[in-house]
């Protein structure tokens, strides 16, 4: 126990003097890194522009209110497209994620040295690239439109779904699988009756969770030309039609909250 002499009395301390110094040193290094980072941001900012930020906020705020409610009639189709992109994208992603997850899970993979690293590579590379970047790429391949957004959403979701799903597969109880195998079931039957029922709750949970995230992501894909309500947002921003922007933002917020509410209800019912 670290002690310190103070006026001839021993006083308890949390750490020894040496480890305390090391800690202070690390905090100092962290602080220096943070200050350097901040300086870089500060250097690239035109601070004299910031003098009238308050006025700009008030100005934009007064232009944006009240929202142009009549514009909603032009938004029904984009909303429908956005939801379709999120829902169909989730379904395609799940269809592709299931085989990847079975290839990636240690207890179901056909080959630990050849197939598993390949599956993990798919998971990592689809997961680390944001759906906007996928959309940017796909717009240049399949042309602007909902289809590009749909594929972008599906590709982006594969890694996420497959990762969570393969973790669920690795956690299944082996005894149930063994019991099915002991009845003389074929590998396919083992899969259907031994493994699938055990991961079904996790699967359903992942599906609605990802659907919720995809609604959020599909609302902004239009910014790069991939369809949905983001397209209207972009064109309203370009012509500085702030009342339309505020209405679109309200619609997006509403859609996100509804999506989160549905997904929370469904997950609550499953788990």
């Amino acid at each position: 126990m670290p002690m310190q002499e103070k006026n001839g009395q021993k006083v308890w301390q949390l750490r020894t003097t040496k480890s305390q110094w090391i800690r202070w040193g690390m905090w100092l290094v962290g602080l220096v890194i943070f200050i350097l980072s901040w300086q870089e941001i500060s250097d690239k900012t035109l601070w004299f522009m910031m003098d009238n930020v308050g006025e700009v906020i008030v100005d934009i705020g007064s232009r944006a209110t009240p929202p142009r409610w009549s514009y909603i009639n032009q938004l029904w189709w984009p909303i429908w497209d956005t939801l379709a992109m999120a829902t169909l994208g989730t379904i395609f992603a799940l269809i592709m994620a299931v085989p990847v997850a079975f290839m990636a899970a240690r207890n179901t993979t056909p080959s630990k040295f050849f197939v598993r690293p390949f599956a993990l590579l798919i998971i990592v590379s689809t997961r680390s690239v944001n759906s906007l970047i996928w959309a940017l790429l796909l717009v240049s391949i399949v042309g602007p439109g909902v289809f590009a957004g749909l594929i972008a959403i599906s590709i982006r979701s594969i890694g996420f779904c497959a990762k969570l799903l393969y973790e669920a597969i690795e956690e299944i109880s082996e005894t149930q699988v063994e019991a099915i195998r002991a009845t003389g079931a074929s590998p396919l039957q083992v899969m259907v009756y031994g493994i699938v029922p055990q991961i079904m709750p996790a699967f359903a949970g992942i599906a609605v969770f990802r659907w919720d995230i995809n609604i959020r992501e599909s609302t902004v894909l239009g910014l790069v030309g991939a369809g949905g309500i983001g397209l209207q947002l972009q064109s309203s921003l370009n012509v500085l039609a702030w009342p339309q922007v505020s209405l679109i933002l309200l619609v997006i917020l509403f859609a996100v909250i509804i999506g989160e509410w549905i997904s929370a209800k469904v997950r609550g019912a499953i788990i």
Partner: protein
Amino acid sequence: MSVALEAKLGQAWKKPHFIKNPAWRWALILGSIAYFAAAWSGIDINFGRIARGWERGWQFISAFGDPDFTSRWDDIYKGIYESVVMTIASTVVGIAISIPIALGAARNIAPLPVYLVCRAVIAVSRALNEIIVAIILVAILGFGPLAGFITLSFATIGFLAKLLAEDIENMSKSQAEAIKSTGASWTQWINFGVQPQVMPRLIGLSMYRLDINFRESAVLGLVGAGGIGGTLNTAFSRYEFDTVAAILLIIIVTVMFLEYLSGIIRARIQ
């Protein structure tokens, strides 16, 4: 029981249905099929355009075999540096702001009015997409990394404060009470009773958020909020797929490295 068994003798076993009521089951199945068909029919696929674009897609895929790091290296370096700087600064500021908010959003620590205010802050931060916040901030503050920095800090609050508050709510009461019974002041109580219990989770979540912030900083540039996204967008519009491939490879490798690092740190503290 035995009667039911007798009746079932000789019949093959069938898997019980997930939804018992057949009317509900069929309504659900038909309803989803109808929705999917309707949703799918709204998507027009221009096959001619895809056939033409396919060549470009192939160029993109083959570019990964031969990424071009050198010809635009200055732009790539500047973008990555700006992304890293934005990530670090916004994660630090985001954590610093979210700790008090997390304390306020834990029902077992905070009084009801504080709790409601902090929960409202978290809800707003979570509901707004980063890109949309970035667009609004770019409109207000102008182009540059400051908008991206504020966006990421704001997004960090919703994520970190929510999860940290949940962890504080789940902490063991007896340890905190033991500290309180020694006559500790409120700050001492938080410092010695609450903080040691949530510290491993806080470090783990912070590392995870660092990782997310880097990934997000890669797209904020698309709307002009600084970082590598701007370079990426330029490369895409010039159809310089070899540069795009180089940037994407750098992002993927950095993310993998961060994930690996946070895995090691989390394993050591838990």
